[in-house]
């Protein structure tokens, strides 16, 4: 009877399996859901466009970043003489400045997020998986760092090491990994209690393999979502650091620097503020749409 049953089961499954032998992984399912989300896909397209322009944009203009021109100070956007987005108060071309700024802002946003990701995932996963006293100690350390104000920390770094762009990377990355570590730890704790972890341990799988094969792939979903939301946050942090004069240094520029300088000549040359501000806002929206889209795609139950 049992054998017969196993067989008839198998036959039934065969009818089913004939249609689809290759399974669909959760990643494939998520990708499908993500693709059907219009806002998120729009975000991806616009962001790709901005990224592309940040590379190609400056080359399209006849002007270079360092080209100062006393004849063309604070020209409003015009189609004549190729100053498509006008010039600033030192006569530099805004088109070039905006795309160069995009380059720096996006790089900072992405690099700092990668730093935060690497430290945060390693730290959080270790604390969560090891647990007990180690976990307690590691997370209290995070709490202490949380209490340290970001600005204070950066001012100290700047006064000690002087201003440079790598310092900005390090400073922002060093602060933003804290939240990442907390998220990863929380996820790891809940994954650790899943029975498939116990099953793997019971069949003699080594701890390292368990973390690599079972913990990290299942933690990664919420982490990806947080990453897409962390990039715009970091761009924004860089912006206000630059606004306060602690960020990147001339002649290098970023959207934050442009906005800060544009704010000074708001009445006489409003385009100096408006153009980078719009770019920044659009980028923020894109990342947030993508983040929301990813969250819906990766965790369909939460909707």
């Amino acid at each position: 009877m049992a054998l017969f049953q196993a067989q008839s089961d198998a036959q039934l499954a065969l009818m089913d399996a004939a249609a689809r032998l290759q399974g669909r992984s959760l990643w494939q399912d998520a990708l499908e859901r993500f693709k059907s989300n219009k806002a998120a896909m729009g975000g991806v397209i616009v962001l790709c466009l901005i990224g592309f322009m940040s590379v190609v944009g400056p080359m399209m203009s006849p002007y270079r970043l360092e080209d100062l021109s006393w004849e063309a100070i604070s020209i409003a956007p015009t189609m004549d003489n190729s100053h498509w987005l006008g010039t600033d108060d030192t006569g530099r071309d805004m088109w070039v400045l905006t795309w160069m700024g995009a380059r720096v802002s996006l790089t900072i946003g992405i690099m700092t997020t990668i730093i935060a990701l690497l430290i945060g995932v390693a730290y959080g996963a270790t604390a969560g998986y090891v647990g007990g006293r180690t976990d307690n100690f590691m997370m209290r350390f995070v709490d202490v760092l949380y209490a340290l104000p970001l600005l204070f920390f950066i001012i100290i770094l700047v006064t000690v090491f002087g201003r440079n762009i790598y310092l900005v990377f390090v400073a922002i990355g060093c602060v933003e990994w804290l939240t990442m570590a907390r998220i990863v730890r929380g996820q790891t704790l809940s994954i650790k209690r899943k029975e498939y972890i116990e099953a793997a341990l019971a069949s003699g799988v080594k701890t390292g393999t368990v973390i690599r094969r079972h913990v990290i792939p299942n933690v990664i979903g919420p982490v990806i979502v947080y990453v897409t939301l962390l990039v715009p946050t970091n761009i924004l942090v860089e912006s206000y650091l630059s606004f306060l004069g602690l960020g990147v240094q001339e002649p290098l520029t970023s959207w934050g620097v442009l906005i800060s300088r544009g704010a000074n000549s708001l009445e006489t040359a409003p385009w100096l503020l408006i153009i980078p501000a719009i770019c920044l806002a659009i980028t923020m929206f894109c990342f947030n749409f993508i983040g929301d889209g990813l969250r819906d795609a990766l965790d369909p139950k939460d909707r």
Partner: protein
Amino acid sequence: MKTVLKVENLKVHFPIKAGGFLNSKIIPLRAVDGVSFEVGAGECLGVVGESGCGKSTLGRAVLQLIKPTDGKVLWLGENLCDLPREQMRQKRSNLQLVFQDPLSSLNPRLTVAEIIREPLYATDPTIGREDADQRIDEIMKAVGLLPEMRNRYPHEFSGGQCQRIAIARAMVLKPKLIICDEPVSSLDVSIQAQIINLLRRLQKEYGLSLIFISHDLSVVRHLCHRVMVLYLGRMMELADRDSLFAKPLHPYTQALISAVPIPDPAKERAKGTLILSGDLPSPLNPPSGCVFRTRCLKATPKCIKEVPTVEVLENGHQIACHHWLK
């Protein structure tokens, strides 16, 4: 029958923080408190009891997934509790585990083949790909899954099929003992029977020893050779299936058996159910003496003062009760 597993006076106590912020103290939660039993080769031992009686903890402690506080777990004469981690890891191919919830015991990101392959690689990293694939196909057929389904993911299967995958993962190493922790409780009735039949068949074919943990006495009676009854981490009664169900000696076993509804209106309405009063006491603060005395119909002052010792009768029937003769 050769004894493969011998558990002696096994204790698992979890430290629990109790009390306020200033006067907090650690008190032990006695999940398993001095349980001894043996499992023979090819034997199926049923472990029954209500939620909170420590039956799942017991299973995990035997496999050293939870470190026992005290006692011995002798696997073929070797005490597993004393083994260093790495040596224990190598022993694991002999002892496997099947869980209650089939879906959550399978990693959703891995295909069926990857799930079943994992124990193979864990015990023998040098195993060839073809070798592994052949063994996966074999075991999938044995548990009633089509080898063609190897590249699909757990969420594409029904509960019963997922449990088959979990059994395949446990069986692929050809273990000598499998501990099944409520393997059919989360399945529909019609699917339960399929899995029970499968376990029965595998046990006979491969000469497996099974520890079958369940709260369902009907299933235990159908599948097991001997049955152990746990209450609040202690063993109440341990006996052959037939003598336990025909003549339960412990008042708790009697109540447990009489509480099971029988799918026959005439019998069900005619039988007098022994209704136990109250609920399970907290394992943090177990009653003194016999742990069952607060709900026992036969309890006397002696039960409050003295912990009953386990008596072994002639036919091997073990019982821990002061008044079983009455």
